[in-house]
């Protein structure tokens, strides 16, 4: 009915183990670096990311003419250090990515397990909710909510969290259906386990490896969406250094100083690529087969 990716048994590319491991390691390295940079941003940033200096506007990065050694990645249109803003921007992206996944994961996994385990009208209701969610235009609704409720980090996280649960629900539902009739569920039932125990202690641990892979996909999506919302002016509010916002604010100057949009854009690209590489690696290691 609704063609959404479901786990299926299938051979994948990346069969050369060495290459696959290199890709996974690279992904882990990128994500690990982003986590460290996000946590230790105040220690790593060479300057205050909010400090303006109108005498030092649009200084190019070190590899270009006219650069200054104090500002490795140059400065933006308000003279703020670009490296410092990039480092603090990692914080915004990672925060959005992780918290959105937690919110949407809670909603989606709960719905999916309930629908998949109980079947019948419960499942009908869950499928109905998934169909409704998919038919709602994601970016437009998120923009409207932020415009009406007000732009803040919390609003963006909650909005994306309430919108991005569909893939969690679909995968949790399908995989729960695959395990619900297995012997260990029947054994738990025969042993008199409560429903909550069966769902949380028997079903969930046996499908969680599929959900971890979904989490990486959703985290990448949330980071890209936040950047797009901030780029359109309805994401996190200035002067917070979000990479999407950095691109939006620098857009006017991109014709004369293209690096102002290249630097945050490449950061976004590399982080999302890293998360996806890690997700692909986890999928292989955990034996999940999940199409995107």
């Amino acid at each position, binding site marked *: *009915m609704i063609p959404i990716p479901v786990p299926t048994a299938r051979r994948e590319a990346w069969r050369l183990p060495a290459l696959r491991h290199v890709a996974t390691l690279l992904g882990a390295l990128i994500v690990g670096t982003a986590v460290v940079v996000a946590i230790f941003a105040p220690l790593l940033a060479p300057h205050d990311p909010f400090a303006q200096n109108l005498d030092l506007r649009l200084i190019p990065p070190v590899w270009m003419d006219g650069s200054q050694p104090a500002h490795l990645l140059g400065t933006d249109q308000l003279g703020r250090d670009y490296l410092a803003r990039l480092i603090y921007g990692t914080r915004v992206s990672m925060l959005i990515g992780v918290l959105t996944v937690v919110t949407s994961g809670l909603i989606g996994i709960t719905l999916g397990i309930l629908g998949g385990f109980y079947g019948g009208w419960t499942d009908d209701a869950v499928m109905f909710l998934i169909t409704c969610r998919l038919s709602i235009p994601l970016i437009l609704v998120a923009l409207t909510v932020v415009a009406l409720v007000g732009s803040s980090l919390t609003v963006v996280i909650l909005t994306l969290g309430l919108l991005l649960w569909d893939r969690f629900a679909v995968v949790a539902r399908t995989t729960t259906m695959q395990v619900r009739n297995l012997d260990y569920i029947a054994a738990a039932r025969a042993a008199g386990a409560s429903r909550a125990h069966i769902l949380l202690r028997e079903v969930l641990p046996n499908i969680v490896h599929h959900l971890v892979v979904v989490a990486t996909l959703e985290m990448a999506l949330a980071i890209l969406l936040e950047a797009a919302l901030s780029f359109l002016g309805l994401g996190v509010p200035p002067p917070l250094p979000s990479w999407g916002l950095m691109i939006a604010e620098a*857009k006017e100057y991109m014709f004369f100083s293209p690096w102002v949009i290249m630097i945050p854009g490449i950061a976004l690209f590399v982080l999302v690529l890293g998360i996806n590489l890690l997700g692909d690696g986890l999928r292989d290691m955990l034996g999940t087969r999940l*199409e995107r």
Partner: protein
Amino acid sequence: MRLSLARRLLLAALVCLTVLIVSFILTRLSGDLAASIAGPNASAADIAIITRNYGLDRPLLVQFLDWAAHAARGDLGRSYLYHVPVWGLILDRLPVTLTLGLSGLAIALAVALPLGILAAAREGSAIDRGIMLIALLGQAMPGFWFGLVMIILLGLDLQWLPISGLDTWQGYIMPAIVLAFSAIPALMRLTRSGMIDALAADYIRTARAKGLSRSKIILKHALRNAAMPVVSIAAVQLGFMLGGSVVIETVFALPGVGFLAWDSINKNDFPVVQAVVLFLAVVYIVLTLLADLMNAVLDPRLRG
């Protein structure tokens, strides 16, 4: 099949109703719609006038039923800003968004199908890994940023294409490519995995045993079976693309439905926002229904 078709139509109708409710509630999220319309500098008297004129003092349920009854008859209300029916505003801008969406989908299919088939036919080879790498890179590319980079490279440095607007048809080229890029990875992966499954099936072995050529096996026997999920995803992707046109149309300043929606959000013209949300949702629902029907045509087993 008839029963399941009835079920699907009923489901689609229920989803439409829910979307109607959601798009109504959406514009009431600020708590005081009149204050949102009036803007931050409005006086209490201004807000009172707006509240009365737009009927915002009535009970919420009455407002909703009134709006829904009009929407069901195709009347989506009037724009606060332009004082014309919203439906007309959408229809005026629809050709741009449809042209963009359809050409984006055409480009995406033209790239994703051949590459997906090639990757499946050479599964595990360097070609396969190269193609999957393209999918991976495409997936990580932020669409709006890719658009800006293309504007700098193709529009400014090389001056091949107009950087914004629609003075000539060439204004569609860059936005359509950017839009296509958002769908290519998913379509490519799906084509590839569908083909790999199809090529492992018994009827392919039979076809091979009959001595049919490899290209004939791949294009005639395997592709037909691999095409089904691709048709569904293509319809869904078109729906997503029309929704995603908000970002692309804003980047390239194309006067389409997405740009209208973004502009209306910024100008507090909420009847327009409400109507575009509803419109895009209904288009998506219809597209998925059509995809189901097309799959029933492609696969006799689904007809039962």
